[in-house]
């Protein structure tokens, strides 16, 4: 279908080109110069015929030659534009984008709007921020084809969001139509932009609308779940703990987001004084299923809950565990941050994730220079994911170039395409590497802060222990027998529920269903 449309576009362009060539050739007299012109015209006609016939490879070779031929200086933009179209059809959006950029940079030609449109599409398919920014900054919305306007508004919104123009971003996202495939993302980002602009009411409404608009796609729909989480976070920020917990609870367990939600809801539970509930959550979060996840804060939070209920021994265990896990992480991150090469950061993350994908839990995680918990965290970061996705697209394009037949590969356009993709790959890897470095820096700072917090919490623990000891010496301590020492737990079991005592092993189907059955020990 695309190919057919493409041909129609090209056929429409073709007469214009030929007509133009004829018009310029007409008044000349028959001289040697005219012969040259005639041959030039024939070359162009030949190239356009190839375009018309859908022979993209041959056409691209010819057009590339013509684009560098001074005889076609006055047709250069047309040729570049057509070359871009050919390359786009040949699944080489990056190389194609460079041709469109040339047309856009020239500025004053009749292919400008078309080139901008195609450049936006190529940039959109590549997901490259730099290209997108470039295209978007030059596009006039009204001149952009209606069929692609949702994409344009969405990308403009993203651009504005990155530049902290939150209200303008929200407005752009709002212009994405409900029928567009980009609507769920746009609505989510619109709500996010409102949140950043401190417009909680508008943000909540946007999230709510997103949730409602996705009801028909099932409870696990990613957009719906994202909307729910957004609502819950707004309520949390508004200190409406119980309401936020209720919304967090609506996030289905069989979604990727559930893990983060589970931790966030623990905060809300803690803030609403539901210590038992938060400890129940921590039992899941600190199980072996999460040993590869970066969750230092959750350990400190657990220690604080123990502090609340005067479980100093448990608290000390948790704090010791925090130090045992995260001190080496801090050390390794600090050491790795001395690496000067940006590419080494990217390469290390990719090596670890690739091996993890292949070997799963059998992977020896000690072999990596960046602690694996940190690698996983960075790999999931949005900016890194975008860069990684762009790199994968470039690799696909490189493969497309390598898969072309030898004559094309050895032609000028083939060599040029290979050089362009290779250069972009190097740059993209470096950029991704710098992103990894920035995240590692953030982790180091985060851990530094948390170690400080750990010190305060430990101080509180020692203080609590001291107070308890004082009371004991004064004979005001708790009686020997406490309710949580009672082994009769019948009252925990309600009709319709089963009770399985925890015996040290963690089961996937039990995650999220653990319940802390101890009581507080404060006197």
């Amino acid at each position: 279908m695309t190919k057919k449309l493409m041909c129609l576009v090209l056929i429409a362009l073709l007469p214009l080109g030929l007509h133009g060539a004829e018009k310029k050739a007409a008044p000349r007299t028959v001289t040697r110069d005219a012969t040259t012109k005639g041959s030039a015209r024939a070359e162009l006609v030949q190239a356009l015929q190839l375009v018309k016939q859908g022979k993209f490879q041959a056409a691209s070779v010819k057009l590339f030659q013509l684009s560098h031929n001074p005889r076609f200086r006055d047709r250069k933009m047309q040729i570049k534009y057509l070359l871009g179209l050919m390359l786009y059809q040949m699944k080489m959006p990056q190389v194609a984008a460079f041709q469109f950029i040339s047309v856009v940079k020239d500025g004053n030609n009749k292919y400008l709007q078309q080139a901008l449109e195609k450049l936006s599409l190529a940039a959109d398919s590549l997901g490259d921020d730099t290209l997108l920014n470039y295209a978007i900054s030059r596009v006039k919305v009204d001149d952009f084809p209606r069929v692609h306007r949702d994409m344009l508004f969405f990308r403009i919104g993203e651009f504005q969001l990155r530049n902290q123009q939150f209200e303008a971003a929200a407005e752009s996202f709002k212009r994405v139509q409900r029928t567009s495939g980009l609507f769920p993302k746009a609505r989510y980002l619109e709500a996010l932009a409102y949140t950043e602009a401190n417009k909680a009411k508008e943000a909540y409404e946007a999230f709510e609308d997103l949730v409602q608009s996705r009801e028909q796609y099932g409870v696990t729909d990613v957009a719906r779940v994202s909307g729910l989480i957004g609502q819950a976070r707004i309520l949390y920020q508004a200190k409406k703990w119980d309401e936020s917990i209720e919304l967090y609870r609506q996030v289905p367990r069989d979604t990727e987001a559930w893990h983060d939600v589970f931790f966030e809801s623990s905060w809300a539970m803690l803030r609403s004084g539901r210590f038992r509930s938060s400890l129940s959550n921590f039992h899941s979060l600190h199980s072996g299923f999460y040993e590869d996840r970066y969750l230092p804060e959750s350990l400190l939070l657990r220690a604080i809950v123990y502090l609340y209920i005067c479980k100093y021994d448990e608290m000390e265990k948790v704090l010791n565990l925090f130090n045992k896990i995260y001190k080496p992480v801090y050390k390794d991150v600090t050491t790795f941050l001395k690496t000067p090469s940006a590419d080494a950061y990217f390469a290390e993350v990719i090596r670890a994730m690739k091996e993890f994908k292949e070997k799963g839990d059998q992977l020896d995680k000690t072999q990596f220079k960046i602690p694996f918990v940190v690698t996983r965290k960075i790999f999931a970061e949005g900016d890194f994911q975008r860069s990684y996705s762009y790199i994968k697209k470039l690799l696909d394009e490189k493969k497309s170039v390598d898969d072309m037949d030898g004559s094309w590969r050895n032609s000028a356009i083939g060599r040029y395409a290979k050089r362009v993709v290779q250069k972009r790959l190097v740059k993209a890897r470096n950029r991704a590497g710098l992103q990894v470095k920035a995240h590692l820096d953030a982790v180091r700072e985060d851990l530094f802060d948390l170690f400080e917090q750990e010190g305060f919490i430990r101080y509180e623990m020692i203080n609590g222990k001291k107070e308890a000891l004082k009371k004991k010496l004064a004979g005001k301590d708790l009686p020997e027998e406490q309710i949580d020492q009672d082994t009769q737990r019948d009252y925990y079991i309600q009709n319709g529920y089963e009770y399985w005592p925890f015996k040290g092993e963690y089961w996937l189907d039990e995650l999220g269903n653990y319940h802390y059955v101890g009581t507080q020990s404060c006197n």
Partner: protein
Amino acid sequence: MRWASRGFAVLFVGCLSVNGNAETIEFPTEELASESVLPVFDKVENVKNRNVVTAKRIEVGGGIGFNLMDAFYNPMNFHGSVSYHFDEIHGINAAAAFWMSGLSNYGEQLKNGEGLDGDFFDPSRAPSPKYMLMGNYQYTAYYGKISLSKQMVMNLSLFGLAGLGTIAIGDQNKIALNFGIGEKFYFTKNLALRLDLRMLLYRGPDPTTRRLLPTDSEYEASAFGETTFFHTMLTFGLVYLL
């Protein structure tokens, strides 16, 4: 993370005012399990920190078994086994079973001529299985747990096995095949009750191919025609993980 730090600070202030007494434990209904779906992970693993670890470990055991389909001879046998688990799923198993001598109840009745209208059939004159040695591949298909009471939870595993070996019948040794399923109920992390239900297949002398009188001397295996036996064995035993 700044919001986290602020949160910690707020919690500290709140913490100073906390003081309470022991309380009765009640769970809000909305916090009790309501979903039957599983959390999503990159790599699905059903259990972490498992109580019973079998990978790279040797398991020894022994017990008693019954041949459920032998009409003539004492169905009871004693067995011993050694297994090595390559991982939590795959393993090999070597087993030996020794049959008790004597006849089954039916064998005794036939020997006494009951229901034979004055004739006799004494199976003890024919050779019977004495022992069996088997080498098996063992596949653990399931590891789980079972709640037998409110406080008692037992781990269990379900496995299948199949292998080849030899069975001694009288003065002959015959090739035998066996396959079956079994279950282990773990009392501790190392000790388990093992139940096996196996099918045993071999060709051997058929005692019914000749008349066997109580006055006859014991015949050699070659004196009988051969047939294919398909027996079901049920065994119980204890196993211990070393």
